[in-house]
């Protein structure tokens, strides 16, 4: 039990810091799944002496979650699903439940189930986020009243209190989910018949398509862009799959098509 508590504590600390980054402070985008998930995997892997495995799992899950939630924007009143907490928790649950299994398929099933679970947790995280924001609204009222009484220390105190509320929320949420969630998840995946469940790997392979579709809907806006898009896919289907080809071509496309767009305008 002691080990589980320690793991939950590590996950809670990471979750608290990462969730602060998502809207409350800094916004270095450590909270993006592509960073948050490998970070969690790295620390948990270090604790379990399986650093490489943790980091790799984090990278895979991070990429998938990044794609699922790529269009969620923190604009104005819009509170997006908590992608940061979802990534931390899915890696934590998937790694802690699966890292004692030897076979690739068993681990994969654990991480896929954790991934699905964490999407729901991300939605729950959004409700918690809204709750903290309502708490902040009360803090705001309190600060206004204090300021009328001439207490000039109130604004910075209230502001710090708001930040502390965000951290506490994420810390407790991650701690409880990890502490209570790992064992049930392990039992659940054990009760699935592993040999029959390579279908989960098919799911993981297809899931990126959703994110690509969302990103394409964001970026392909005009008819010209659509033609570029289809042509590009055709080219890259035939070309060898190498990022040293893809990255320069992308930069070239950005430069070239913007130039010609200016000429047309």
């Amino acid at each position: 039990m002691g080990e589980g508590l320690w793991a939950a504590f590590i996950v809670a600390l990471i979750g608290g810091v990462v969730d602060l980054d998502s809207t409350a402070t800094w916004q270095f985008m450590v909270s993006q799944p592509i960073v948050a998930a490998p970070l969690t995997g790295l620390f948990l892997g270090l604790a379990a002496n399986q650093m490489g495995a943790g980091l790799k799992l984090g990278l895979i899950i991070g990429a998938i979650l990044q794609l699922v939630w790529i269009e969620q924007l923190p604009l104005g009143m819009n509170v997006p699903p908590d992608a940061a907490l979802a990534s931390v928790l899915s890696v934590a649950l998937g790694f802690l439940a699966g890292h004692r299994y030897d076979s690739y398929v068993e681990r994969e099933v654990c991480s896929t189930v954790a991934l699905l679970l964490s999407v729901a947790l991300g939605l729950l995280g959004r409700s918690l986020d809204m709750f903290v924001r309502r708490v902040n609204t009360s803090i705001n009222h309190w600060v206004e009243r204090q300021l009328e009484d001439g207490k000039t220390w109130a604004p910075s105190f209230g502001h710090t209190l708001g930040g502390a509320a965000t951290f506490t929320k994420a810390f407790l949420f991650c701690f409880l989910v990890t502490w209570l969630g790992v064992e049930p998840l392990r039992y659940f995946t054990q009760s699935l018949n592993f040999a029959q469940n390579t279908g989960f790997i098919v799911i993981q392979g297809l899931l990126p398509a959703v994110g690509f579709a969302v990103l394409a809907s964001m970026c392909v806006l005009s008819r010209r862009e659509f033609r570029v898009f289809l042509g590009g896919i055709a080219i890259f289907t035939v070309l060898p799959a190498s990022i040293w080809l893809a990255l320069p071509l992308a930069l070239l496309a950005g430069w070239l098509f913007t130039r010609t767009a200016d000429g047309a305008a």
Partner: protein
Amino acid sequence: MGQLDRWLLLQVAFRSFFLQASWNYKGMMNMGFLYAIQPGLDRIHPEGPAREAAYARHLEYFNTNPYFASIVMGVTLELEERLARGEIAEDIIHDTKEGLMTACAAIGDGFFWGAWRPFVAAIALTLAFNNYLATPIIFLILYNIPHLYFRFQGVFWGYRLGTDVIRLLRRFQIQRARLALRYATVALLCYLIPNHVNLHTPFLITYLPMEWFFLGEKLVQGIGATMLVGLAALAYRAKIDVLMISFLLMLSALVLYHWGILI
């Protein structure tokens, strides 16, 4: 020119990192804004009613792009100085702040959320799908170059130029940069879609001769992935929730796997 030195403006820039810590439904980033410019206000206004009035003034509604907020902070501090010297009236600060925060929100959100983050995310995904373990670090460094540039320079620009800062922003040609980034993101997508949606069917192994297998596999992957992405995009355009689409995709993947069409 002003009474705020470089050190104090840097302090404001550092405090602007905590802009949204107390984000609330009434004033949004108001407390964070006040918290950030507090050292400046303390320097400008002597302790007493003037300072309290300044605090109360900046507890009003404030919402903009967090990275561009430091520009508004710089401009506000410059105006506060002029107010303390008696050159302008209070409502000028209010109006300027409101106009500027709307402009900065439009420019900043459009650039950072609409173009820069998807582009950097696409690069990171390209690297991640190729198992580059340094992906998170590359993502962070690349993403934060413009972020930190605007955040730290913004305070100084705003304080030095006042409301003329808008003219400076125009020099960056953000619209053009957005278009270029969008095309680059599309190009990266063109690479990602045929290569990193894993779609394998057993028919190829059974029916194709070995020398045609790899080409066939690539073509099937490319065409199948494009169709899949197209379907998902149509569903997304029809305002079906992303999670719902993912769920439907998983369900159909399991069914197709069960029938032996996909492996």
